[in-house]
């Protein structure tokens, strides 16, 4: 719909501008004039839907503008005046374009509101048809113009008979009927109209010159909604018509709402579980959805108490429910309903109290949904999630296992290095004893000393075996361990290999830290990083190769830093080293799992962080672990 245009003619700048602002805000297109001369000039070239005309203007009477406004037949003029002279008002109506008066002595806001309401009313009048029945041609024409300007569609009939024909043919919303007519007068027409049930509620106004109270009473009895006595002021007629038509609109709106309400009701009734309770939670109504859901053999009886159906576990919520409802609040929770006659169902119920004017609860509407299936689904999903999580864990476990297997080869190398010297010693010892025996120099002292030493060496060798076996033990539980012991465990395993490659490994424990952790997994991570550093040092043939491990505490974190001086990790690689199956080592030397597993172990199994950066001399790996105590 295009914007409606309004022409404001008022010499008061305050009123003119305020009206302009407020009407523009409501979506009108506004043109202003402050005197007659300007208004005339504007009217020569422009037409408007509405004009707001002030009668008292600096250069004359506003009335002199009416002929100019009249040029534009479609225009509707609203006269703003404080003039209470009734004759003058009537006179202005005769121009055929004035539709109403707004008295200016009212409060300004009120005036503005009346204007807007009037315009709105007129724009909603255009789908209403009024039938004017009068035998006087003059009256028919006059009323047609007056009512058309008011926005109504107007049909005319010259007597009751014609009127009935028009009513049959057209959709008539209301009628204005002259009482005294030839052929069929107003009274007979009224009776005829009301006889048709469809027209029972049609608003009808009767016009008559009579002042006989009994005649007037008869008219009303016959079904007239209102009566107006000739002669009448146009303004009075319009007010009465407006009132009658507003009531009609109102009634129709109520019908629309009622229909809509019935549809809502039906929609809820069909789509959801629907209960009505009284204020004491007695059941007033239960819809078939609920009955279908609950009942095998017995209906939910109206008059039984809601609590009768609530499972014993949920009865404790009833007090809270009633308290909330008393305060006028809506209440929502899942109730498990059960009884001897049906299986338990879980319903998410929303209780809405409906209050009367005196603030007492009239009814409680309960709308609900069956969440039993949803709950089953949820628990199914939970199970699925836990199965997936378990799968994931299993997969990770497998990867850990794989990486352990991969490092098994290295481990055998480490064991080899650790055992070479003691095996050498034992070999020498036996040859020594043999030689001494043959030289007759095998005495008690040599025998005892050698045996004692042999036992010491052998126990060291079995400790090596234990260390390695411990290291490979699959232990998923957190143990309270000293970090220095864990670092030492890794150190013990690789020490001989490092020694053999002339790599110096330094450890520095700035703080003594004990924490809950996966001991072997952490040890594996440390070993993995040391082992990578060792490979880099050998590969790069670094001078004075060394690896240093620092353990320190920062607030609630344990920090393990493992540095080497092998020159660092190339920039194009450093971001990718934690990716699975990423390796820079030659085939057979690297699986690409080690650092990926290390990151998984630290970050997912132990809530820590594993980061890497390059220092001036080499790579630096930083393990950050939250210090968890045993009671946490």
């Amino acid at each position: 719909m295009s914007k409606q245009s309004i022409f404001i003619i008022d010499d008061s700048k305050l009123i003119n501008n305020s009206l302009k602002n407020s009407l523009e805000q409501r979506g009108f297109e506004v043109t202003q004039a402050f005197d007659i001369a300007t208004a005339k000039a504007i009217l020569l070239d422009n037409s408007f839907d509405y004009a707001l005309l002030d009668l008292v203007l600096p250069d004359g009477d506003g009335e002199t503008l009416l002929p100019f406004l009249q040029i534009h037949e479609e225009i509707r003029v609203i006269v703003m005046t404080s003039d209470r002279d009734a004759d003058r008002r009537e006179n202005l109506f005769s121009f055929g374009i004035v539709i109403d008066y707004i008295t200016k002595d009212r409060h300004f806001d009120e005036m503005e509101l009346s204007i807007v309401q009037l315009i709105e009313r007129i724009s909603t009048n255009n789908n209403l048809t009024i039938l004017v029945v009068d035998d006087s041609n003059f009256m028919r024409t006059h009323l047609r113009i007056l009512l058309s300007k008011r926005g109504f569609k107007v049909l005319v009939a010259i007597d009751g008979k014609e009127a009935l024909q028009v009513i049959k043919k057209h959709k008539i919303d209301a009628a204005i009927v002259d009482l005294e007519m030839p052929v069929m007068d107003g009274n007979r027409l009224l009776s005829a109209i009301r006889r048709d049930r469809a027209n029972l509620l049609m608003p009808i106004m009767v016009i008559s010159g009579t002042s006989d109270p009994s005649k007037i009473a008869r008219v009303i009895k016959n079904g007239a909604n209102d009566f107006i006595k000739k002669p009448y002021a146009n303004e009075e007629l319009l007010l009465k018509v407006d009132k009658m038509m507003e009531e009609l609109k109102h009634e129709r709106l109520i019908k629309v709402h009622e229909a809509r309400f019935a549809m809502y009701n039906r929609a809820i009734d069909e789509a959801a579980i629907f209960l009505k309770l009284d204020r004491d939670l007695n059941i007033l109504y239960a819809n078939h959805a609920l009955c279908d859901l609950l009942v095998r053999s017995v209906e939910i009886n109206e008059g039984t108490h809601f609590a009768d159906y609530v499972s014993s576990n949920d009865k404790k919520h009833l007090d809270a429910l009633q308290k909330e409802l008393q305060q006028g609040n809506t209440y929502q929770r899942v109730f498990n309903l059960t009884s001897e006659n049906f299986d338990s169902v879980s319903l998410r119920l929303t209780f809405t109290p409906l209050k009367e004017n005196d603030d007492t609860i009239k009814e409680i509407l309960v709308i609900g949904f069956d969440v039993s299936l949803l709950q089953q689904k949820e628990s199914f999903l939970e199970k699925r999630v836990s199965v997936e999580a378990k799968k994931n864990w299993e997969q990770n476990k497998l990867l850990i296992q794989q990486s352990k297997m991969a490092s098994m080869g290295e481990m055998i190398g480490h064991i080899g290095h650790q055992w070479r010297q003691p095996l050498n010693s034992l070999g020498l010892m036996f040859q020594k004893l043999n030689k001494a025996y043959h030289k007759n120099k095998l005495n008690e002292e040599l025998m005892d000393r050698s045996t004692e030493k042999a036992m010491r060496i052998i126990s060291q060798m079995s400790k090596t075996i234990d260390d390695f076996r411990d290291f490979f033990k699959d232990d998923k539980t957190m143990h309270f361990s000293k970090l220095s012991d864990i670092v030492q465990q890794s150190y013990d395993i690789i020490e001989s290999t490092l020694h053999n490659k002339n790599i110096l490994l330094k450890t520095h424990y700035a703080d003594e830290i004990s924490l809950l952790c996966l001991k072997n997994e952490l040890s594996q991570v440390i070993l993995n990083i040391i082992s990578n550093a060792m490979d880099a040092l050998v590969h790069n043939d670094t001078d004075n190769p060394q690896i240093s491990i620092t353990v320190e505490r920062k607030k609630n974190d344990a920090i393990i830093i493992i540095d080497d001086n092998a020159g660092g990790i190339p920039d194009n690689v450093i971001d990718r080293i934690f990716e699975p199956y990423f390796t820079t080592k030659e085939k057979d030397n690297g699986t690409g799992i080690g650092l990926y597993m290390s990151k998984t172990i630290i970050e997912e199994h132990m809530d820590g962080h594993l980061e890497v950066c390059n220092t001036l001399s080499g790579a630096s790996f930083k393990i950050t672990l939250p210090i968890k105590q045993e009671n946490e």
Partner: protein
Amino acid sequence: MMNDDLVLLYVEDEASIREEMIDILELDFEHIHVATNGQEGLEMFQKFHPDLIISDIQMPLMDGITMSQEILSIDPEAKIILTTAFNEQGYLEKAKEAGIKGYVNKPLNINELFEQIEAVLASKKE
């Protein structure tokens, strides 16, 4: 074996092996000097002028090859036997070039070692 007059220098960083070897060598030799790395070995060579040097290769501070080269630059006739582990075979070429007379593999076989000792000592008499 007539080894009473011979002066022996034994160089080994690994204590456990060193102890055994001393026990064994003492069964046949009277004058044994012991060093725990190449650096110490070189100092002892200059001090005691041993007739025979038995040395490990991989050692801290100074390895056996470097020590041998130093000794041979002082006394080209010095008699040196190196004990080599399997993973040190690469050093052997270097050792021969440097003029080292003999070597035995680790783990040490005493009979082999003594055969080497005899062979190296015999070469002195030529």
